[in-house]
């Protein structure tokens, strides 16, 4: 009889804790989604990546890169990151010498190294219009080291170059 009561009390206790846990998970999940959705929360909750757009807020990684290349005179560019690989596609305003191409990828690597400071790899693609010319990629740490040292030769050593062609093989 005593054992039965003890077992019943134990079951009841487990149910109470289970219920509290479920409610806590539900409320916690709702609160997390609320913050992620852009609800009015302190700025310190920004790790939740809110969906709300704030034009005057500090720029995120992509916007930092795009603002930097815009400062350098590039009108069009696209940037994104996935799996630690940050890719920047730059439209060259005009390539009038070989140096212009190198200026393009140096600016690209420098901007990426600041915007995506933890990336494992950087990729800079140079385009003229929508015609791909050249892709330059480098290990993230090596590229950041070259940028910090302002050393183009080191960047060149760390880089892999690929000529791009039209998709139809032209």
């Amino acid at each position: 009889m005593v054992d039965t009561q003890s077992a019943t009390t134990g079951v009841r206790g487990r149910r109470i804790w289970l219920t509290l846990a479920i409610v806590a998970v539900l409320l916690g999940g709702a609160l997390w989604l609320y913050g992620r959705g852009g609800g009015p929360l302190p700025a310190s909750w920004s790790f939740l990546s809110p969906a709300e757009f704030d034009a005057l807020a500090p720029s995120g990684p992509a916007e930092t890169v795009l603002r930097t290349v815009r400062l350098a005179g590039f009108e069009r560019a696209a940037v994104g990151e996935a799996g630690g690989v940050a890719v920047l596609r730059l439209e060259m305003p005009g390539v009038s010498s070989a140096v212009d191409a190198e200026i393009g990828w140096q600016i690209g690597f420098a901007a990426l190294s600041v915007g995506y400071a933890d990336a494992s790899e950087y990729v800079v693609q140079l385009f003229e219009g929508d015609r791909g010319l050249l892709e330059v990629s480098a290990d993230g740490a090596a590229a950041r080291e070259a940028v910090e040292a302002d050393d183009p030769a080191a960047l060149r050593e760390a880089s892999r170059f690929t000529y791009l062609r039209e998709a139809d093989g032209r």
Partner: protein
Amino acid sequence: MRGALQNRLSRPLCGVLTTAVVLLSLAVGAWAAGEDGYSHVWQAQGAITGDRGSTVQSVLQSEMTLGRDGESFTGAVTYRDLLGVDSGSGPRSQEAMIELVLSGALLEGGTRAGGTFDGVAVLTDRSADSLEAAVADTVPALSSGVQTRVRVRGHWGANLSGDRATGEILYESVVLEQGPGTGVDAQFFNRVSESGPSGPGDPQTFEVVLAASGTTPDEPDSPVAGGSGEPAEGGDARSGNASSGLTPGQIWNYILRGLTGSRDRRPIGMPPVLTDPARSLAQATPAGARELPAGSIAIDRDVSGAYLDEKNRAAGVLDEVGAQQAAGDVEAMRSLAPGIPAPPPGEAAQSYADRILAALDGLADGETELREELRILAEAPLPPDPTQVLELRTLAFAAEAVRDAGAYGSVLGVTAEQAQRVADKRIEPGPAADAVLASALDPMAPRDAREVAQFEWSAADDIEGGLAKRPSQAAETVSGLLGDSGPVVSWEGDGGEMLTAPGDLSAYRRAEGTLFWTAAPIEGFALRDATLGGWAFSTARVAVVEAAHVGRWVAVFPASGVR
């Protein structure tokens, strides 16, 4: 015993059920918010009745949102209908599309709100066999009709009761943008006045559940933007709005948006002449290239270049000394590149092909394919066209850049410093920040930042500090645009090709360096200097902007076309 057991079993379920009921009630609240809308009664419906004829209306779409952020209100209307009219001269069909953007404020007493709206309306007039056929869903697909596009403006007001707003919209200004527009004025868009045919008419009506500003997930694109409404990259911090008075529906809205992870839909207000090449760049898939990651952000597709420039300007990084140093480093690199004589006429293609082959030295992937490309080109029976020559020239420079990489200096350091300034510098409130908001089409932008009625230099409006300099002349004059004869500016607008023909244009340079050109004789447009402070490339440009919306470009031209 059995009852006690059931009681014990039901307790834990109660907590779960209670939570579910709360969430369900929130969902119901959110669902209810989507049922309100805007109703439109045309003049013809009030005037053509009885012996005068008959009308029939079919509403295809009617959506309205109105958000409250403290004492500020923003909203949008998207409306589309078909109206059949028969006044004795044969049935006609009118298809109407109306898109409005509302902004306003809480009025005294706190139970009313009001403000202004701005938008576009597109009316398409068609003949029809009958009134029933005039409002058939298939009408738009069967006949193109005669289209009239107008810009509409006016005022709105609403009574507030809890989270509901019941109000009126009065059209007060109609400006023809395209098409015949016969008889289309402000009165045309209002209801027939009960006090008589004179005057502007009676307002249209709406009823809507208020939402927190910026929480309308399906907010339509800005009516005059014509943009795609792609999500835009934003910052990481909160704007801190709507910190009080949240309704269950608003909370549920935040939760839903957190679930989908989708950012606010914000129109970037760019014309196709800018967005089309931006899309081409972002969507290109050249052989050998990595794919752009999903969710990549492209200038002029997802975020406007004007917004990025204004943000740089407001942060004070546009005219920094660092930019001058970077420009110096770029010029130093270029000066070290050896000059190469231009190839003789007729031999350019072969000359550049030879240079490419000379530069290929096993340093890059894709060399085999490039050699094959050159071989095919050499076997072509016809001489290469100028486009191919230009392509070969660019490829030659790219191949030589790979071969000589690192030999001409560096802009790595100065660029990284500039990027760090971009990431670190905060934007202080003020006119420059207002320009950022205006370029982002943010409802938080002051109305006078979005609507510039007068382009005149005003010292009182100058941005103080920084490298600001007072102009030596308050006005500059240019004699034409894009050539000596018949300067015509054309661009592809929402309604097709748009034209304006500015004559002599005067301009002023504001203290922060922005050059504003006076509005063209055709009302509503002005030219604006869109020069980037680029150190690597000279990309001076001139933009035609709508005077009513600073930063909303409608066309961009090389500055070399302006004298």
